[in-house]
């Protein structure tokens, strides 16, 4: 892969935003590049008092403690950080073809809890059977975290089952609910309000709050869903 070029912008006066200049990378490659830059910068996180380094699908945001820079006699933290961190961004593992981890997620699509299969079918004109077939046949990649703790955006969904978010939120969506909205599918990590269309439910907990680093999804990971029946779900 060609070494990409990048530029910095500010996100307020206590965070900076890094973006890739080239527009021709595929979404999956762009995610890989952004997360490799993140890996490089994590090595100097403590040294530079970075509070958080957060990747999305098209940018990387670094929160820094500007008080620390002021105390060290640096009156323009943004410029200082931009000038100094470039040397750490070496895309160390960009050309090393890493074996991408993959995971298969069991989903009960039918008759266990309320789901929106009927509504999606009516809205999109695709049969329920086809929605399930399309959802399980697609190869997905974990794109980013956001929205809620442990909520991973997994994409892209097939164009035939793309549906915008619902107009109103459900007060409680059960943990494990497998849902879709626009180009993404996701698993609700815990009981919470939500506005995505629900396809079914998985018995797998995607994150344990007490040990959030032991989450099942890593960014860049390959994901597939497969259908299970009610007794498989209950005995999982």
């Amino acid at each position: 892969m060609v070494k990409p070029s990048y530029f910095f912008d500010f996100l307020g006066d206590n965070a900076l935003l890094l973006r890739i200049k080239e527009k021709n990378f595929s979404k999956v490659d762009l995610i890989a590049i952004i997360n490799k830059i993140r890996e490089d910068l994590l090595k100097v996180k403590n040294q530079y008092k970075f509070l958080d380094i957060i990747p999305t699908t098209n940018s990387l945001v670094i929160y820094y403690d500007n008080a620390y820079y002021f105390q060290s006699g640096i009156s323009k933290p943004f410029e200082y950080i931009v000038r100094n961190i470039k040397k750490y961004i070496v895309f160390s593992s960009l050309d090393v073809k890493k074996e991408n981890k993959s995971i298969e997620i069991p989903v009960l699509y039918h008759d266990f809890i309320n789901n929106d299969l009927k509504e999606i079918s009516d809205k999109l004109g695709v049969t329920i059977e086809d929605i399930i077939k399309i959802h399980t046949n697609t190869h997905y990649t974990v794109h980013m975290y956001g929205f809620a703790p442990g909520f991973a955006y997994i994409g892209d969904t097939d164009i035939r089952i793309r549906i915008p978010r619902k107009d109103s939120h459900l007060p409680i969506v059960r943990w494990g609910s497998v849902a879709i909205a626009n180009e993404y599918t996701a698993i609700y990590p815990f009981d919470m309000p939500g506005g995505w269309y629900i396809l079914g439910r998985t018995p797998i907990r995607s994150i344990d709050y007490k040990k959030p680093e032991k989450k099942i999804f890593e960014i860049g990971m390959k994901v597939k869903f497969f259908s299970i029946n009610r007794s498989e779900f209950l005995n999982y």
Partner: protein
Amino acid sequence: MIEIINSGAITSIQDMGRWGYQHIGFSVSGAMDKKSYKLSNLLVNNCESAATLEFIGLGPVIKFNKKCLIAITGGNFNPLIKSSPVPMYRPVLVLKNSVIKFFSPVIGFIGYISFYGGLDIPNFLSSKSTSINFGFGGLNGRKLKKGDKLAIKKIQKTFYLTKKSNNEMNYASWYVNEKIKKKKVNVIRFLPGIHWDLLNESDKDTFLKSSFVITSKSNRMAYKLKGKKINIFNNASFESEVTNFGSIQVPPDGDPMILLSERQVTGGFARLGEIISSDHDFFVQLSPGSKINFVMVSLDCAEKLALSSELNFKYISHSLKVKEKYDFY
């Protein structure tokens, strides 16, 4: 031990926030008005990031089951013990079985009460801050309610304040002069945000010349504003981007909202700007109904103002440390 006799509106345990987990979707949370929060701790000789109580909109009623050194900062909620006003911005020694009552704020919108020793609750992901929206941290992940009891960490050092006293409490004769003041015009300065340049010149001009009012739909996640609607983003869709404290976001309804402590890590709405960090504390203390005007500044200006706020804070914290050494207790 302290006991919540009445919880007020939004009373919760807060500290500097839960940093280091935003990359897996955990919002930072933490105190809304950082300066008042840190000062409350420094006034009672805590480290500045100890856990305190934060109350918004309507204050709590708290009973002290033992003698306790406290400090109250932030908005003025007219605190009383029996019928004696409790002075703010100074250390106050309250007696065993005292009950402190806070009312509605007369100035400001958010108050802090710190306790010498700090609140003794476990950390959740390296912070004691409550994330009310997602239900974790603090006390069982929720705002406080009537009957809640909170332990205060035991402290070795004994303290006495002999400077001033009445029947209900002893308090220091000095105070930190950082009380929140009302201003005639509330100017909120911001840096251009990621979608600012999608506005044409006349839209930019309109935004900068209009006033906005903070509505009652305001909480720890965001303050919702009302003013001239910004309709050009109605049908636009944006990729999810990382948010910040003070992000000026425009959802499809056209009314801007300012993202705060319990904001989601990422957001997919248009972002006009980012309120500069030295105006964060001032902004969150504006109560619903307050009128604000936005003024755009440069990064250079924002950093200079942040530096000057930091120097001012360091000066106060240093003065308090000197006091503590010589005549604090």
